[in-house]
């Protein structure tokens, strides 16, 4: 009798151990294994290291001009999108006094005239008065509403452009996509790569946080078509989106492939001549009625031949092209 009871108890203990082991192995394989290599030395190199784009450090990633007039007096606080960090780091190095940039090795000091808070933070900061100029893609409807609710009108001055690109894993055989197919994928009508001439694998339609620059760009492509949440995303082969230079320049394009859209590759030429269908402006954004004259001076510099050269050298498309 005791032996039977003991066997039963041992069986229960073994079952509980096996169930936990199965659950934990499942969590590891599904959630962790897919991103763990991000922390390998190879993937670390792909991360956007803010420290590589700090002005006045002699960084080879920051392009600036030496003979531009420096701003004096009330130095405007500048901020912007991750993808555009090289551009405004170049502007800052060209016309800001070196003493106005305070970088502590990991982040910019609150007292620094250059910040880096990404698109969502930058649009909030310009409305709240924590930044005076931001360099970003177009704002989302929600960001415009936030400005309106706070009685702030934003002026958007185009200072360059770049392509919005769709990316897949380098091993995905699909090379091209159409705008209608993009709308089909993100509205949930197209769910398998075989519908695009690829393998019989579900499409994991990845998206970004609301109000990020690239998510706003996707919403503009979708128009009135609602973006459907993809609950099966973990099990498919992914498609994602970003800005061209963020993929090719800042992240080195390792392991990903940019799709042509309607057969057009996003090159400086096709973006400049408008043949690539989803190019978008880069804006210098400031508050309407801004009284700090240095804001106008800074934007005038961005639009000048010197400023446009920085846009081009940083990997984006200048206005003059």
């Amino acid at each position: 009798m005791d032996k039977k009871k003991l066997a039963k108890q041992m069986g229960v203990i073994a079952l509980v151990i096996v169930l936990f082991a199965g659950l934990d192995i499942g969590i590891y394989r599904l959630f962790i294994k897919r991103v763990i290599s991000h922390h390998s030395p190879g993937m670390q190199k792909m991360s956007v290291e803010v420290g590589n784009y700090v002005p006045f450090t002699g960084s080879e990633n920051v392009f600036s001009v030496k003979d531009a007039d420096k701003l004096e007096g009330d130095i405007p606080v500048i901020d912007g999108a991750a993808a555009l960090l090289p551009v405004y780091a170049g502007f800052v190095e060209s016309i800001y006094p070196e003493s106005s940039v305070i970088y502590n090795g990991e982040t910019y000091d609150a007292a620094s005239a250059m910040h880096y808070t990404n698109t969502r933070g930058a649009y909030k900061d310009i409305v709240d008065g924590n930044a005076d100029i931001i360099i970003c893609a177009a704002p989302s409807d929600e960001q415009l509403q936030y400005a309106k609710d706070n009685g702030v009108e934003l002026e958007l001055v185009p200072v360059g452009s770049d392509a919005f690109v769709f990316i897949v894993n380098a091993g995905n055989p699909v090379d091209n996509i159409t705008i209608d197919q993009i709308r089909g994928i993100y509205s949930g009508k197209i769910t398998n790569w075989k519908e695009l001439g690829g393998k019989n694998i579900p499409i994991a339609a990845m998206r970004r946080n609301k109000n990020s620059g690239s998510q706003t760009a996707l919403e503009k492509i979708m128009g009135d078509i609602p973006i459907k949440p993809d609950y099966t995303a973990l099990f498919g082969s992914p498609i994602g989106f970003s800005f061209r230079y963020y993929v090719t320049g800042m992240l080195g394009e390792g392991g990903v492939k940019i799709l042509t859209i309607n057969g057009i590759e996003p090159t400086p030429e096709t973006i400049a001549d408008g043949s690539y269908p989803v190019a978008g402006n880069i804006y210098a954004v400031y508050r309407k009625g801004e009284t700090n004259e240095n804001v106008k001076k800074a934007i005038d510099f961005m639009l000048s031949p010197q400023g446009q050269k920085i846009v081009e050298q940083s990997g984006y498309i200048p206005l003059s092209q």
Partner: protein
Amino acid sequence: MKDKTFIAILAIIMVIGIGVTAGLMIHGYNLWKEISIVEMIANWG
């Protein structure tokens, strides 16, 4: 095995199991937060 001993062993296993599961989920969530969409696609064919 006495019932009390059995329950105690089971409780210890449950506590360890739930702890490991929660730890893995927190670790996984932290990794996912850090990775960009481009890196994710590069990793995840």
